[in-house]
């Protein structure tokens, strides 16, 4: 039994290797891209449209609405990053119904990579929004004494993000593997169904937390400019207590 798909290595040359995590990630990328291409190549602006186009529109507009609800003012700008996070994690979880499939999100390397992306994206969006000085000054809020704590918070939440997703996905796969060896019939199916649900929840949590972090990086500026609406939205945004 493998704790992580990283341990399944198909090919290796020095530090460069092709393991199951990368391989399955490519598979997911191909699946998502080809599906999107197949559907969007025949998009129509008429009132009557295909059910696949409807599905995609519902997914995209739903994600856009969620981003807007978190408090980000131009959701289209963040849709590429946050939406892809959600779609990748969700698709990785949904594909667990395929026998012999190990979700790449069950690898701490993958979740760490995603968390690192978030770690880098948050200051990037923050600097883009309020400039380098403005963003760095937010680490000194409310006083310069808080600087180390802010940095620790930034790092720890990234770590928590990575470990939370990894733990949930890995545990799901592990539980199913263990149950299959103990009670081969029915119960693993129920656990798989439960795993689908938790996988969707994890996808939602991961992407919404990333959105919250990005929104928090801009909160200082919006609070200073007295935009109460933005502030209230940020206050009501989900916290790290999820999961």
């Amino acid at each position: 039994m493998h704790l992580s798909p990283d341990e399944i290595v198909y090919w290796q040359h020095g530090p460069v290797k092709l393991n199951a995590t990368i391989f399955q990630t490519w598979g997911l990328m191909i699946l998502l891209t080809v599906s999107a291409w197949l559907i969007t190549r025949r998009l129509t602006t008429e009132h009557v449209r295909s059910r696949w186009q409807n599905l995609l529109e519902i997914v995209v507009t739903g994600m856009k609405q969620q981003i807007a609800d978190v408090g980000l003012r131009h959701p289209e700008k963040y849709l590429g990053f946050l939406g892809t996070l959600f779609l990748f994690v969700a698709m990785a979880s949904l594909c667990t119904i395929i026998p012999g499939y190990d979700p790449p999100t069950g690898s701490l390397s993958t979740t760490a990579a995603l968390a690192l992306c978030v770690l880098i994206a948050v200051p990037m969006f923050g600097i883009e929004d309020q400039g380098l000085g403005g963003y760095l000054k937010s680490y000194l809020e409310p006083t310069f004494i808080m600087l180390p704590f802010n940095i620790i918070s930034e790092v720890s939440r990234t770590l928590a993000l990575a470990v939370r997703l990894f733990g949930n996905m890995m545990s799901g796969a592990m539980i199913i593997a263990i149950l299959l060896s103990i009670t081969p019939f029915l119960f693993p199916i129920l656990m798989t169904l439960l795993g689908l649900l938790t996988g969707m929840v994890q996808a939602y949590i991961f992407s919404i937390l990333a959105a919250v972090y990005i929104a928090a990086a801009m909160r200082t500026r919006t609070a200073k400019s007295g935009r109460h609406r933005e502030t209230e939205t940020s206050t009501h945004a989900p916290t790290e207590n999820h999961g």
Partner: protein
Amino acid sequence: MLIDWFTVSAQALNFLGLVWLMKRFLYQPVLHAIDAREQRIAAELADADARQTEAKAERNEFQRKNAEFDRERAGLLGKATDEANTERKRLIDEARQAAEELSIKQQESRRQEVANLMESITRRTKEEVFAISRKALADLAGADLEERLCGVFLAKLQSSDDEVRRQLADAVQDGSEPPMIRSAVDLPPEQQEAIRNVLQEMLSTDVRPRFTTVPGLVGGIELTAGGQKLGWSIADYLKSLEAGIEELVGKPAPPEAETSIPGA
């Protein structure tokens, strides 16, 4: 070790690649399609609003024109009705007037016809009667008749009452002209003398009457003095007969009969 750093970097690159791919093949096309549809719907709604506004304006215009048309129609109808009534009344009045005029003309014509007929009958009758009478009287007229007529006239003068006498005397005395004795034929001197004597005796004054002959009297003698007339003639009888005939046919005697044949 749970974290393989090569895998981490590879997955980070994979993720960034997936972000690009998703942007390229999913988000942009879908968002563009949604935006295009929203714009299309907005355009259609705006168009529908414009059409609705236009339709409302057209409806209001139509209603206004309809009301105006109704009003004009009612006005024209009322005017036409009034004109028709006026024309009808005028035509009826004209017809009535024409009928009345026609009726009056017919009545007049009928009356004229009756009058003409009556006049013709009267004239014919009168002429016939007079002709017969004149012929009979002319045949009978002679010295004896004239003498007899004179005798009757004298008797009438003598038998006249005092009032007549007084009026006759006043007329003779006041008149600038002498009294006139008219007879159908010329009176012989003896009769003229007898009449003059009777008048002098009656009026107790010297009277010189003027004697004239009027054939229309047929037979008889008349005394005229100062507007007073006294006498007797067959013409009086004939006039009386004529008046009786005219009274029978309901027509007054023609005025020329009165002037031509004066009576006592």
